[in-house]
């Protein structure tokens, strides 16, 4: 189906409403899973659907539909619904015409072009590896991919299309020795199928290190100095400050902009946090958002000073600021809301070994299971190590590390020189009913003077 042609034929200016736009998404995804060497799940999922938004009489009216050839009918239905409502003033300032941007360029490497049988064959080739890992009690091998094309058109004339292509493979093991258990996983993110091959050595080395955790002791709860790896820095950035930068949480609060005054010193002076959707080849790639605003490098914090926040057109309207390219929906069934793209702390100059020396008696966190935001953010780590004599020492078991966002931002004492942006094809960011959204996050290793660990 020629989707661009469908939108070309659709005249959005003819509808008697304040604003209307249409987003069509065509996705093809596939997955498989082996559990303990047995293929238990596999499938391909093609989806084609559209989301229509219409603003009239002071409210938004949305429809998600799979009838992409009948969008005119859908818009007419929304118009009837809108006009049957008690009229309110149209407070929404229509966005500017942001031009026409057709950016589809990944079709050649699209995972949808590769036969499912070839993907499963690759997985099959890795199965013997599990027998080479010591103490495996339970294993999973998971694969997922996604090729998505988005097409958009609005009544002010903005048009775009772009595509997104990613895959991931994950090896998960529960190790057991005596009564001691430890679960851990190796994962790899790629944008080309060939990059999924020849991972054997990395996987074996990874699970070799995991063996040490079988005998690890549980940490004594308390406050510790912490060194975060780039992966942990990424989730910390996303959960601690990224979510707080989403301006929709300020809606309806007349005091919010005073509390979040631009120019306030809110973090350590070595801290700069950025959100930027234009990093191609990452899971946070979003060159233009679902309202047609182009990605831009948004400094949320620059040298410790609050310098920006993330907006949709609506939140930018209300707070009288500019849209930032962060209105995103997880798929055609939902409306765009304010979301992150690739969010990170900018790299510093301190070598990793120096960070360890500065964190004597503290804990180093390497990777994680999940994190969450809020007044107190949390990260549930997988691997953590004690720091002794300026080096990584024995592994330790930790349920969660947590902290007050604002206190922790001020306790960042140093940023490393080992910047890395982390992508994942599994999971993503969850916000209210919309989960998971592909995002990326990262930064350098960082030193925090004190965090609650339990």
């Amino acid at each position, binding site marked *: 189906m020629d989707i661009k042609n469908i939108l070309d034929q659709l005249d959005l200016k003819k509808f008697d409403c304040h604003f209307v736009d249409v987003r069509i998404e065509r996705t093809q995804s596939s997955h498989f899973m082996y559990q303990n060497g047995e293929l238990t799940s596999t499938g391909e999922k093609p989806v084609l659907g559209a989301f229509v938004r219409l603003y009239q009489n002071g409210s938004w009216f949305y429809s998600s539909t799979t009838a992409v050839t009948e969008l005119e009918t859908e818009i007419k239905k929304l118009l009837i*619904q809108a006009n049957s409502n008690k009229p309110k003033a149209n407070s929404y300032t229509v966005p500017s015409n942001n031009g026409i941007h057709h950016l589809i360029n990944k079709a050649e490497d699209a995972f949808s072009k590769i036969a499912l049988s070839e993907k499963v064959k690759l997985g099959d080739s890795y199965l013997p590896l599990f027998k080479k890992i010591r103490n495996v009690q339970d294993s999973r091998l998971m694969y997922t991919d996604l090729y998505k094309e988005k097409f958009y058109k609005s009544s002010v004339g903005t048009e775009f299309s772009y595509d997104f292509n990613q895959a991931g493979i994950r090896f998960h093991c529960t190790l057991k020795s005596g009564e001691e258990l430890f679960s851990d996983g190796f994962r790899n993110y790629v944008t080309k199928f060939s990059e999924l091959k020849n991972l054997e050595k990395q996987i074996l080395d990874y699970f070799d290190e995991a063996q040490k955790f079988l005998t690890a002791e549980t940490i004594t709860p308390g406050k510790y100095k912490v060194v975060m790896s780039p992966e942990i820095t990424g989730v910390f950035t996303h959960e601690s400050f990224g979510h707080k930068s989403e301006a929709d949480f300020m809606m309806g609060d007349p005091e919010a902009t005073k509390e979040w005054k631009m120019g306030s010193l809110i973090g350590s002076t070595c801290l700069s946090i950025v959100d930027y959707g234009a990093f191609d080849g990452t899971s946070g790639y979003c060159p233009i958002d679902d309202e047609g605003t182009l990605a831009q490098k948004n400094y949320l914090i620059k040298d410790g000073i609050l310098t920006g926040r993330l907006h949709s057109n609506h939140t930018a309207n209300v707070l009288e600021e500019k849209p930032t390219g962060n209105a995103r929906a997880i798929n055609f069934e939902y409306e765009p809301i304010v979301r992150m793209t690739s969010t990170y702390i900018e790299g510093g100059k301190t070598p990793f070994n120096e960070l360890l020396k500065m964190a004597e008696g503290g804990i180093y966190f390497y990777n994680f299971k999940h994190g969450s935001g809020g007044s107190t953010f949390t990260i549930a780590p997988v691997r953590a190590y004690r720091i002794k004599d300026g080096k990584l020492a024995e592994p330790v078991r930790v349920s969660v590390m947590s902290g007050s966002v604002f206190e922790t931002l001020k306790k960042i004492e140093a940023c490393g020189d080992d910047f890395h942006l982390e992508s994942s094809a599994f999971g993503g960011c969850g916000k209210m009913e919309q989960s998971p959204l592909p995002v990326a996050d990262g930064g350098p290793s960082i030193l925090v003077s004190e965090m609650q660990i339990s």
Partner: protein
Amino acid sequence: MKHDILTLNEESLSIEVIAGKINSYRNKNITKKGIRLFENNKIYSTSFVGQITDAELLKKAAASKSVGIPFDYTLATNPQLKTFDEESMKAPLTAINEAIELSQERLAKYSNDFVFNGKFERSIHTRTMTSADGMLLERKFAYNEWHYLFKRVGSPNLMDGYFEESGKTLDIKDVFDKNLPYLEAYKTELTFKDGKYPVLFIEGGQLFGKLAESLVAEKYCEGSALFSGKLNTQIFSPQFSLYDVNYSPAHGLYKKFDGEGTIRELSHLPLIEKGMMKNIIADLRTAKKYGVEATGNGQRGSDSAVSTGFNSLVIGAGKRSTQDILNSLDECVVVFMGHGGDFTDKGDFSTPLQLSYLVKKGEIVGRLPQLTVKSTTQDMFGSRLLEIASNGFQKSNLQPSLFSEMDVYVN
């Protein structure tokens, strides 16, 4: 060719409220289908989103067979069951507007101090499983849900708390009767000391993490779960029972048949009874593989293969009401938000508490500072379990309240 077809339809109206005013209306009516072809002991799956006839889907699936999942178990034999809750569907989708109006009335007096943003949704769900051999399983019901996130005016937080409710019918009055006294106490900020306290999570589901793993056949039988090998062993306090519940219309649970067509008439499958581990859940594959009984827990979406999953994990009710227990406790930490916690593989549990209150002898004293609580799976349902209530915090909660002593630290 032997096959089954799963058809899911959701029709919904979702209304977003920002600062007490309606911001948007979202209409959705989407059909998703999944087909499984069974051939030479392999399952070939295909899915489709949108309108497509069963005949077209079958043709499409037959043409796209590439990788099959091996299977060696017996499939459900042409089960038939129809669960239509006509009563729940009488009102139109727009009936959800009444809930918005009621909530606006109750919250009006707080609007100078708090911002309330939320969403109200009424939906009709249809799930049908059919096969050419005569399988005909259908359920259809309407469901209502709403939530408000609240935030103190000027608060730097994403949210300071929330109210929510879901089910066949709504009881907005009950939700506000139970929650607003705590909102009133929000501004009374307390200081607190580290120590051991009775703790009540008003949503207790997050406490089950490590235990739940042990109740799934694959993890249990592979020996990789915390309680592997403990069936028919006393692992917790005799006060503690846990069930997998598949049918409770008041709470929107109508899962008498699972994604493989296994019908389970027993609505409450006992997993833990009086502290003793009694059952594990299994789908058809894991039941055959590990020699256990299939329990109607084969979960499947239109685009996913079957996996073993709970319908709803619910604690066995105790004798006294939640409020009676609170009235009897000298001190209790009542947790409204404790997000982001987790377990180690040894069962150690810890979570920060973003919103909790101190209640003394049933009286709300005030809001506690940011805390962290710590326990273990073994302790919270075992030696440190204090009491389980006869009901939940609010009427819409299927889960009775669980009171357990935990180590509490001020952050």
